[in-house]
């Protein structure tokens, strides 16, 4: 399975994969928005026929409260391509890119409380922690766990030299100019 950075040419096929795999879907323009705002962050998994069998659509939080952090908008792997570690590989590449290009300190995502398989991946394999529950987050009314993964190990390997991982808390808000 070929894992590589997503280009604008991949966005339509990512949309196709998303429509086949997940009930949360987006218009093409939203994919363009991701690809043209944070081009380094989205990745695809491609089989030998060039079919997109998995993808991660990622961004940086537009208005971070404290530290810069990334966010996973959408992640999916076609069901019959499991057991190949694709989701983990996609997530690790996205996290690395968030640290490298945007100095992210952590990455967040939302997951349905009933999605046991995804929870297993995020908690056990990738080291995410639940930070809170957001009631009725999904369109069908289901609750979501908001999860968070600190990117310390990525920072040590790929982060900028001479920049502190721990961001000092902001002092009293400066007066707007």
């Amino acid at each position, binding site marked *: 399975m070929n894992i590589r950075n997503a280009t604008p040419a991949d966005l339509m096929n990512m949309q*196709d994969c998303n429509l*086949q795999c997940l009930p949360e879907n987006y218009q093409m323009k939203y994919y363009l928005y991701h690809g043209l705002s944070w081009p380094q962050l989205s990745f695809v998994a491609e089989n030998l026929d060039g079919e997109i069998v998995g993808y991660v659509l990622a961004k940086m939080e537009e208005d971070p409260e404290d530290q810069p952090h990334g966010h996973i908008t959408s992640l999916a792997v076609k069901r019959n391509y499991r*057991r*190949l570690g694709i989701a983990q590989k996609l997530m690790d590449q996205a996290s690395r*890119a968030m640290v490298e290009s945007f*100095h992210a300190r952590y990455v967040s995502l939302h997951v349905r409380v009933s999605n046991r398989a995804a929870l297993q991946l995020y908690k056990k394999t990738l080291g995410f922690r639940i930070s809170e529950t957001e009631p009725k987050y999904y369109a*069908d009314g289901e609750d979501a766990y908001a999860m968070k993964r600190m990117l310390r190990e990525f920072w040590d390997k790929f982060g900028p030299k001479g*920049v502190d991982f721990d961001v000092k808390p902001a002092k009293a808000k400066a007066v707007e100019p």
Partner: protein
Amino acid sequence: MKGLILSYMGKKDEAWELVKRGLKNNLKSWHVFGLLQRAERKYDEAMKAYKCALRFESDNMQILRDLSLLQVQMRILDGYRDTRYQLLLLRPQQKASWIGYAMSFHLLGDYDGTLAILKEYCKTQKPSSQYDYEHSELLLYMVSVMLEAGQQQAALDFLNEHDANIMDRTYTKEVRARLCSELGRLSESETVMRELISVNPENRAYYAQLEELLKPSGPVERMAIYADLRKTHPRAAMPRRLPLDFLTGDEFVKELDNYLRQSFHKGVPQLFRLVEGLYDQPGKADVALRLVEGYRSSLADCGRFGESDPASSAEPPSTLVWVWYYLAQHYSKLGRPAEALRVIDLAIEHTPTLTELYSLKGQIYKDAGDMSCEYLKEAQSLDTADRYVNSVCARYLIQAGRMEEAEQFLGRFTREGTIAGEHLADMQCMWYLTECAASYKRLGQYGQALKKCHEVERHFNEMVEDQFDFHSYCLRKMTLRAYVSMLRLEDKLKAHPYYFTAARLAIDTYLMLHRRPLDALADDSERQKAEQEQAARLAARKAHNKEHDADSDANAFKEEALDPEKLARTDKPLDQAVTFLRPLLNLCPDSVEAQCLGFDVYRARQRPLLMLRCLLKAKSIDASHPWLHACLVRFLAMTADQQGAMAAMEPPVRALIVQHLPSLFGSASVAPKAFNDAFLAKSAGNFVNTCWGLRLKYELEGSTSQSACLAALTAALSAGSAAGIERQLEACSNAYIELRSGDLFGTVDADNLNRLRTQLHDLFPYAREFFSPTDAAAAAAAVVKIQPQVLNGETSNNGDE
């Protein structure tokens, strides 16, 4: 102004009224006029309006900016450059002015101009800190321009000079590796490639580039590279899989054995698909089969991969299930469904809760010609939370022509209160639209098929529209490499396979409707049904809109709703066909099918020169393609018609045609029949080509040749059973369907049809297309019995592990 506001509130007619009045009274309203035109996508009109406005206010930033956006959207690049220059003169202190101006040079291919402007701009800039993403992106954009310009040394120097400010290390490494390689600094390039592999060991391109650098002399040296990489990256999948492509003999057997054992042990469902590519290489399919059948018997006997393996290496029971799973896929691919089914049934008996097994069983039946879909539905019922299984199930149902059932299944994952199909069309769901189009066409519901094709076309047009906002956005965000990449993609958006599929379906349908227009008054019941469906959709949409979209985008560009009846009864089918055809001819230069489609369309429009152009292009791509042969024969038949078609041509046209005959046919005077007979003779053993040849034979010689054609077809089928015809189900099905409908050899009598059907049934015992009427009825009844259980029963076995 009032008009502009009204237009955004959706009151278009009032808006236009006011604006036109405004124009009479105040010539400055041209800008507003332009904005309204642009909102209705009348770009030429909008541009004229802006230019008018500029005559009165040549320094109005807003108008200039709006004009520049239109110019780049429509790729009027000279104009774009000129407008951006004016913007720069007016606001030299704004970053976007400089970047936009530089970009306009890049789009015109003037790399030196681009770089000069940007370097000038950079002189005045100090990044706010060492790490400034936007500045980093600008630097990398300049590098990318240098690369395009072939200025490799300059690019490398620039990278080194600005290294401290560049944040995207991965792109930097990729560029550096490429540049060092091109400049002959091979060991430096190798170091960087290996670093890249460490960052992402699953990127196939990195390995290809590494091999190019190291230039191994043969499989042994190649294998050494990968053995080495496996040590440094023990958990990476790519270095374990790639050697299977180039190894042969005992080395190959050993490697494949290891690879398969590891994967079976882990339980990788897609193992067959990962290995399938090797089957094209001689002998490798047999090696795989031998190994896997070996595991199967050994696992069944003693629970280990090999009899001689140590007792401690006992495999869990699931391993055997995956071995069976692999074998079932293997046999199905080789056209041996009976064996495939035997094996998958063993697996199902062993582990009846595993969803993949039912999906595969359904697929085996489908590939063998049985679209009853029971097993896909069963698979879906085992994992109701998974949309992918649902999508596959729905796809099969659509392919089987069971549209309502498909809607039911799809509805389990689409928004409540909407009709599933409508929702998916709104969400630009291409797989759904193209599958439906194909299915409706097969069912003869041409209006519905065309509606889906037009919906695909509209979505592609929508995506071309989408880029508009990004022309200013990307200049601010500085993600310029991605922006240029997006522009180039948009230039050839319709080269995408989905567009090709939809276009081809639309063109074929329009050609059919041109030959046999639908009777305006016929099919009353179908019309009523369609009208009812349309009404139901509109009602559901209204209700949905009331609830959810109170503030829906009233300013959104609204196109006329697509009416299947109108589409199917259009009086200009060929014009419509050409609309779909043009992007294919312009954007798919390596597609012989596009050229053949073009030939068919131009033949219907009686444009001999355009036909000729398509033939010449197609021949240069793939001279042996059977469809091209058909086009050639038909062209030749036209040139042989001296009194009719040839006489109707203008003399210069006729002369040009005659001039090209030798290059197309080998000599200036070939008889169509002889040309086709030669092709038929060459095609012995190739069923698809033989079918084409026989079709043309009938076209040329008429009903007197029917018995000869039928005999030849029968012979081809008999001979084919020795030559791998069991993998040609689709070709056989298509041939049989056309025989039945009279489109292949004219009206064929029942006895002959039945004889061929029986012959096909013997070759493909599972294919329902070839069942006798009694068998077909029995099969349909059997399906009905299973259905209530599967659809109504809630999942009793929810777990899948």
